[in-house]
């Protein structure tokens, strides 16, 4: 179960041999397929209003700077507020999520206690409940606590990640040796100390994975903010772009702004992937769904 990075040299211990053309071709076709829409959005973001619908899709336009300044000017720069909100929800939420998953998964993976399997299965079953089932009751309950339409209403429900707990459990079982824990106990270390000083560093690649999944999950979440938030200065980017797109009948969708906004909204995620990939481990049991 070696940690593995996305750009790790794929060839391994290389023996110089002739290129295998079929696999190479298949991979390049796959890469192109995945790139087409992204290339389109990059090009479309350079077009001004009239070019967007009148020029060939893959012909670059002349309006990128104008689009950027329009987007920045839109409602006094609320777009950047949405970006900052998304960064806050996703970053802080994923951090808390990784912390909670670390403790929970560690407990499930490294201790045997009564009810362990029951608890684990129960939490795992949480994956199966569609978000839409929970959203409205969550809203009504948070409202009763006076927390609806606050930053908390977006953060709190995002912290628990059943999948994160599951992943850390697997990871803890595989990467934290029992002998080491026992040895530390003999030396009189407290359970908390063992967890924080020994287990957490050893589980770090797994925790980074949890952080990333949860970051992407929260960044891409639409339903929760849609239900929870009313004040548009608290909107994350997905909901903000949606309101830009879903104008009323008397207001046309602001396509150029939406497209430029889309491009800018995916850039941080792509950048995050590129930067963090060297730390990122996806072990063989991972499997997740984007919601």
């Amino acid at each position: 179960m070696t940690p593995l990075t996305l750009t790790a040299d794929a060839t391994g211990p290389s023996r110089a041999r002739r290129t295998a053309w079929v696999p190479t071709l298949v991979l390049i076709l796959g890469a192109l397929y995945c790139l087409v829409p992204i290339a389109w959005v990059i090009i479309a973001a350079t077009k001004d209003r009239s070019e967007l619908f009148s020029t060939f899709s893959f012909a670059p336009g002349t309006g990128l700077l104008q689009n950027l300044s329009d987007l920045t000017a839109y409602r006094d720069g609320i777009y950047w507020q949405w970006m900052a909100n998304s960064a806050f929800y996703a970053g802080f939420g994923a951090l808390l999520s990784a912390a909670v998953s670390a403790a929970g998964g560690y407990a499930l993976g490294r201790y045997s206690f009564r009810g362990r399997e029951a608890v684990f299965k129960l939490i795992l079953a949480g994956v199966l409940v569609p978000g839409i089932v929970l959203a409205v009751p969550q809203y009504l309950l948070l409202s009763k606590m006076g927390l609806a339409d606050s930053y908390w209403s977006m953060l709190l429900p995002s912290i628990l990640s059943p999948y994160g707990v599951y992943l850390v459990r697997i990871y803890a079982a595989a990467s934290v040796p029992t002998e080491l824990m026992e040895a530390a106990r003999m030396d009189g270390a407290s359970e908390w100390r063992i967890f924080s000083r020994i287990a957490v560093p050893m589980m770090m690649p797994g925790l980074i994975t949890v952080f990333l999944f949860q970051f992407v999950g929260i960044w891409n979440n639409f339903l929760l903010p849609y239900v929870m938030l009313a004040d548009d200065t608290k909107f994350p980017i997905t909901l903000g772009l949606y309101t830009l797109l879903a104008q009323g009948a008397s207001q046309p969708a602001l396509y150029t702004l939406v497209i430029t906004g889309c491009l800018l909204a995916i850039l941080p995620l792509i950048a995050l992937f590129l930067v963090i990939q060297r730390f990122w481990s996806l072990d063989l049991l991972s499997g997740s769904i984007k919601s």
Partner: protein
Amino acid sequence: MTSAPLKGSDRVEVGPLADGTGTAPSVRPSSPRRRGRSAPYWFLAPTLTLFAAFTVIPIGYAVWLSLHKVQVKGIGLGKGARAEVWNGFGNYADVLNNSEFGHSVLRAFGYGLIVIPTMLGLALVFALMLDTPKARSASFARLMIFLPYAVPGIIAALMWGFLYLPAVSPFYYLLDKFGLPEPDLFNGGNLYLSFANIAVWGGTGFNMIVIYTALRAIPQEIYEAARIDGASDLRIALSIKIPIVMPSLVLTFFFSVIATLQVFTEPMALKPLTNNLQSTWSPLMAIYDSAFLKSDIYGASATAVVLALATFVLSFTLLRISDRYTREDRA
């Protein structure tokens, strides 16, 4: 009103061990290693508290809502014209008698029949190709194919939506140039393909990485031995690699099925572009329609509970099958 949040934070400190788990807190004074015994519960406390607060209680509330309805009196205007009343299983009867909901479930399955084999098939092929020692530009391709995972579903659907429209699409431009027939991507069966393509685009990379990672965990010596025996790359892939990554395939399949039943973003984002899409095209759209457009949270809750139960049944069946495969892996 102001005391509510306080109460909430109290529970984090005191209640979590006993709450929501169904298992007794085992802080037994007689235990020789009291500290070590209670440790797992303390570590689990935040998880369980959050699970209780944001999963168990909301589900309970949803069930409660699903058993009620609003009763209107007279013309229903003015204060007190509406009352929340007990409805027993009335909402459930409505859901099960509603042919539209049944159709939406069937459509979701039809869509899944296209998406899942294509997506996992492509993911497997790409993963095997990545794992071929002589393939060029593998790391570039790997990154590119994975990239769509970073794109929010709603934005992906939007981008493809533009690419599907004859008026703006480069594909139609090319078809037109070469005088080829131009299919209507929003018509009948093509609709399924159009949605499926978006899901495949977004999901292949992730599944590819999962399978590929499993492949990389196989010791290289196995291949060396096979090669010495004269096995081709194709032969190695088919008879060694695929069986070994089977558990990962089963797992990705399991998650894909759940995602399929919950298909929502793609049809929702494309609905305004066409007159071919029913407001209850997928089960989640039906729930959205009653909860967020018709403001009937009672009926929506009942539909949601039915869908969640169906997902549970399906998942546990699949989980049982997958357990058979993964057990040997874990042992």
